[in-house]
């Protein structure tokens, strides 16, 4: 596939991979075991531009395109799913909506620290009673003078434990128009802004996923992103990009699992030959390779559509659905090839297997994606 990429994208892959191999891969197992967010590496990633991949260079970003973005998320996730998650959420569902829907002042205020990784961003949509059905959110922002008084309980917030800038989806006219959903930006440290306990997750354990709660928190009305009532529009636009990021993440995890699977199959001997000599193992290797390459094509296609300025909702939804499901299959096969050792924390495939699982759930579950895709195919809105 890389043969079809431009010189720029090859250089992107080469340089990011070399960084990840040296800085991230060696600690990926440890940060997962300790559920630790590796600030020391995150700082370096920030300096290199990984937190502002597509943000303009003048704002401290990398000024790159969506294809570069997909490749970078893939490469980081190949080393650590948790950090891939951190980067994709930060870039595509926190920084991007600020750049796309923010006013000049808002961009000047929030984009530079986000793009340089000095501040971490989060996207807060999910609530205890609103998961797949985003319209069911209950959090409110009630206008009071020049402020909104915000009350909400946002759960499963990726980067929650470390985020400084949080995009909150709230009802901004709860009494007169309960359907008016808007995005309001909250900064950590504002009185009434509380970071909840970290989730004790199955995978992605190095990402500090937590709840974020706001109690009578007064946020300036200047923190409204776009206009009141634009929440779902911002959400949808953001998720199109976000989904492409999750597809890239699943792709990276699957790629890593496949590589480990092949390596192990060539080293481990049973019945006097390497596992790789057994046809049943070769079948798995062939399937892993095909699933990974198909995921890659779909993910890069979504990115190419976006770079060409075409609509890419359907492409990114299909890529996310396919790549996340493929990732589960590939990591499962990689564990199978490792036998009992694959079920042990001594081998990286055990982590890939856990990390893979959630890619089918967040930013829209597989079921929701099938709904969206079918609707698109049948021409209904």
């Amino acid at each position, binding site marked *: 596939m890389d043969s079809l990429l431009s*010189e*720029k994208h090859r*250089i*992107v892959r080469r340089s990011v991979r070399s*960084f990840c191999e040296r800085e991230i891969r060696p600690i990926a197992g440890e940060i997962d075991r300790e559920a630790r967010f590796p600030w020391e590496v995150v700082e370096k990633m920030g300096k290199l*531009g990984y937190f*502002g991949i597509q943000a303009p*260079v003048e704002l401290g970003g990398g000024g790159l395109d969506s294809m570069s973005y997909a490749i970078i998320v893939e490469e980081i996730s190949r080393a650590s799913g948790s950090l891939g998650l951190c980067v994709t959420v930060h870039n595509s569902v926190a920084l991007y909506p600020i750049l796309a829907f923010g006013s000049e002042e808002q961009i000047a205020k929030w984009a530079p620290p986000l793009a340089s990784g000095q501040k971490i961003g989060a996207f807060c949509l999910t609530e205890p009673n609103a998961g797949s059905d985003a319209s069911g959110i209950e959090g409110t922002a009630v206008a009071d003078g020049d402020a909104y008084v915000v009350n909400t309980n946002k759960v499963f917030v990726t980067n929650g434990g470390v985020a400084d800038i949080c995009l909150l989806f709230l009802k901004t006219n709860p009494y007169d128009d309960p359907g008016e959903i808007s995005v309001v930006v909250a900064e950590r440290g504002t009185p009434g802004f509380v970071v909840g306990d970290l989730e004790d997750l199955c995978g992605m354990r190095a990402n500090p996923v937590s709840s974020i709660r706001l109690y009578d928190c007064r946020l300036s009305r200047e923190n409204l992103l776009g206009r009141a009532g634009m929440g779902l529009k911002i959400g949808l636009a953001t998720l199109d990009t976000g989904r492409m990021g999750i597809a890239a993440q699943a792709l990276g995890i699957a790629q890593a699992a496949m590589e480990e699977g092949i390596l192990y199959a060539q080293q481990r001997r049973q019945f006097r030959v390497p596992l790789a000599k057994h046809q049943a193992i070769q079948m798995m290797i062939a399937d892993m390779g095909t699933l990974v390459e198909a995921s890659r094509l779909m993910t890069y296609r979504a990115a190419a559509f976006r770079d060409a300025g075409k609509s890419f909702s359907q492409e990114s939804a299909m890529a996310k659905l396919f790549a996340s499901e493929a990732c589960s299959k590939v990591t499962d096969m990689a564990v199978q090839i490792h036998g009992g050792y694959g079920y042990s924390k001594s081998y990286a495939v055990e982590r890939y297997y856990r990390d893979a699982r959630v890619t089918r759930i967040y930013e829209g579950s597989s079921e929701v994606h099938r709904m969206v895709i079918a609707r698109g195919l049948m021409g209904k809105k």
Partner: protein
Amino acid sequence: MGFHIAVCVKSVILEAPAEQVIRNEDNSELNPFDRPVLEAALRLKEFYGGRITALTMGPSVSLSALLEARAFGVDREILICDPGLAGSDTLATSRALAAALRKLAPLDLVLFGVRTADSDTGQVGPQTSVALGIPFVGMVQSIEWKQDVFRVKRVADHFVEEYEVKGPAAFTIHPGALVPRDLGLAGIGRAFQGDRAERWNLRDLGLQADRAGDAGSPTRVLSMKRVTKTKQCEFITGDALEQADALMKRLSESGALGV
């Protein structure tokens, strides 16, 4: 114009091919021994100001090495590319590089990698400086610059040698001298916004065809064969101390350890 550094880099083949060498984008990469060279140039530029020009001689795929150099912060890139340069040995390569470097004058410093990962002769740096008639120090570990004079250190045979060299001078940089920085995304974005690298051919260099490429190369590679390694296992006996002594002795006798 300020301090002007030229770095000569090469795009190398990653894998040793079984038979004929066909270079393409997939198997070519910036020579790993040139990365510390770029790093040295970038640090000198950061410290003393000035500008860096990167040169490479090779087929069009070598452009990628120059773009990578640009992404790191090199100011000007020149691809020396001409069908008449095909088959150049190190002497012909040095001639072409020297001709290009003359065109780039005034230069204060010319930097090279110690060797390349795919040819491994180590001759191009020294030969080019001879062709230019400028002083040369090999395997340099550190460089300081004071009004046209360079102070450089190198380690040889367990001694630190310090030289004072008048510029313009040429050095090869020891691969362990510095840790090359990581490439930032903004640099990559910038590298692909500007103009393409300049291309110079034989005519631009003012080189006669019989002084370049195959025709200008006295070296003939007669054959290339893969070396088959034979492993021999030897057990060292005795108590731990004796084993350690015996091991050290074997390693140093075989040249694997410099003690």
